[in-house]
Each structure stands twice: as C-alpha cells, then as structure tokens.
C-alpha cells in the first residue's frame, strides 16, 4: 500500500505560477527537512511541483479574501499537493 506524500506550498498569490513563500514536505509518512535558504527549495512555484508529478488536492481558501479589506491574514495562499511513490 503506497503512502501518500504531502506537500504544503504557500504561494504569494492564487496563481500556481506565483512564488512559493513557505513549504512543508511529508514523505514516507514523515515530515522532511526543507532547506532554510528559500533559493534551495525544490520548487519555487506550485506549477514546478505539478510538473514534477505532484497533484493539487486542495486549492487556496477563497474566504480568506473576504475579510476586512485592510486586514492581512495568514501567509500567502495554501495549496496542498499529494503524490504516491
């Protein structure tokens, strides 16, 4: 039974081509280290991860833009991706 790998990518906009600003990787049932230097991350955009075989299973939550106009909530726009290897 393959284990589901998970990739949390916070992109700076709703677009999967925008820059990734936070990353969490879970492979083989365990959280994996991600380089502290963002330039060394395996993916700089969500689309790069998609091209590498990851499937988007959760798109950013639209309700986050429906808050008070001047407020800022959370960090970017969260895409969750999966892959079975």
């Amino acid at each position, binding site marked *: 039974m393959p284990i589901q790998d998970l990739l*949390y990518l*916070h992109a*700076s906009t709703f677009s999967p081509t925008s*820059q*990734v*600003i*936070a*990353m*969490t*990787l879970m492979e083989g049932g365990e*959280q*994996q*280290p*991600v*380089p*502290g230097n*963002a330039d060394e*991350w395996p993916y700089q955009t969500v689309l790069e991860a998609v091209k590498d075989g990851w499937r988007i299973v959760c798109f950013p939550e639209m309700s986050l833009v429906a808050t008070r106009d*001047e*407020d*800022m*909530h*959370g*960090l*970017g726009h969260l895409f969750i991706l999966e892959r079975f290897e």
Partner: protein
Amino acid sequence: MATQPETHHCEPTLTDTQMLEFCRTGYIYLKGVVDDETNQRTMERCEGDEHYEPTGILEEDWFIENVILNPAAAGAVRCLLGRNFHLPILMSNHRTIGTVDGLDGWHVDGNSRFSPEVNYLQVFYYPQDTPREMGPTEVLPGSHVIHNRARFMSHLNAIRGSVPLESPAGTIFITDYAIWHRRGRKTKKDVRNMLKYCYWRTEPPGRDWIVESDFDFARADYGSTLSPHMEQFRTHAKVAERFLWLCGKHEAYHNLGGQSWPLPGHRNDLPYGYPEDLPLNLGLSSPHEVRMQSESSS
C-alpha cells in the same frame, strides 16, 4: 531577598529610525549586551532551577540590574513602552535538552491581542552562546502585522525570509508580542537556556525617544520584508499606523487610498493625504527633484 521595583524609568536609547525599524520588522536585536559574569551567574542559576518558570531569578538584584534593567535593553523598552514601564513578573526558561528537528513549531504566543498598539513586549535573553547548531529562535520579520493563530500555523516548516537569531552570550532581543517565531533546529545535544519575559506600558505613547531632526515622516520607508508577499502596500499602511500610534499621533493616521501617504513613490511634492499633525521637513528635496537633479548631473 530585596523588594524589587515594579516600574522603571530611564533615558531613551532609540532614534526615530530605530523605532520605525522596530515597526517594520517586529524586533530589535541587542547583540551581547549583558556582561560575561552575569551570563555565567544566570547559567549557574538555570542549572540549579530547572523549572520551566524559574521566576525566583527576578528576586536577584544582580539579575534585575544587569539583565532586566540592562541599559541597552531597558533604554529600548523605555522608547517602545514609554516612561515608567512595568517590569516582568514571570520568567520562563525555554530550556532545551538534546536535539530538536526544527521541522515545525511556528507560533504566535498565547494571549496576543492583535492591534496597532504596542502595550507589551516579549523579550528573549540568551545567557550562553547560541549558534545555529544550538537552535536559536527563528523569527519571521514583519509577521507581527499579519493576523494568524498558532493552531493555523502548525503545519508550517520553511518560510521565505525567516531569520535564525544566532547569538553570542548576553544577547537580548525585544519583540512585538505578535511576531511569528519558533525554536530552531538544534543539532547539538548540549543544554540550551533561553529566558523569556514581558514588559508592559503604563503611560500613553508619545514621541519621547531620540528625535532625529532630519527624520522625514513623509518619505520614510514604511514597507516590511514581507511586503512582496502581501497585498500591495498593505504592510506600509500597517507599519505607518503602528509608528504613529507609538508617536502618540494615532488620531492623525489615515489612508486616503490610491497613491497617497504612506505609500512610497516618486512624487513631485508631499504625499497626498500626508497627515497635518505630523512634522514637515520642508528642507528636503522630493523624490522627483532628487531624480531630476541626478539625471541632469549625469
């Protein structure tokens, strides 16, 4: 055991520029400001009291004098919280034994009250050298103006722009309580002690720190390092509002939209919407004039 004072007043040590920098980043880093003897006594005290809240250390005169009222730290707190700020009443030791994977742990401390007001500060003191392998606190500069809750951050690992505050012994850093932070990855097994405590404001805010005669409210950079990742110019507005609140000018703060103050810009005059209650620095050239002069001389 001496009775310790509850409040303190001292001379301010921060300038306008440094105050604005605090508003932009959410922290002030005071490298190695505590003397070696005090660091050593603190380490010995931590070895003798392994409780996660060794509050008894606040009854030690040497600790109060050299850490809590450390001139550099207290001077900065004085600027941020005003005269007669309230001293800590509880001490936490984020004592770490063994290694830490540092894969998660981002949070905002509990009971953070999100607001442009700066009424309390969270302060970290490292009594020992804390290089990267000892898991220094990692902060996300500029995150203090972004709403979040610790339980919505629990999945986060690497964040672009985060900074591990590697520190020599005696370093104190002062943070806005709402800053996002975590214990960093620790690869050495040695014990790490890190003391954390709070100060509170008791008097209304005012611009009674070190005023710079050439500080220019109109053209200051109110952006933060997180600005590129947020809705454009939202952080400028948040930082400017916080700075004006600290100046005791919160009622003067407004944002008239579009290209108005406090946005940056290559303008031909004072920014539209520049608050009337703020000082004017009329001797300075506008960004447009500076650019024209530069182009004509080249």
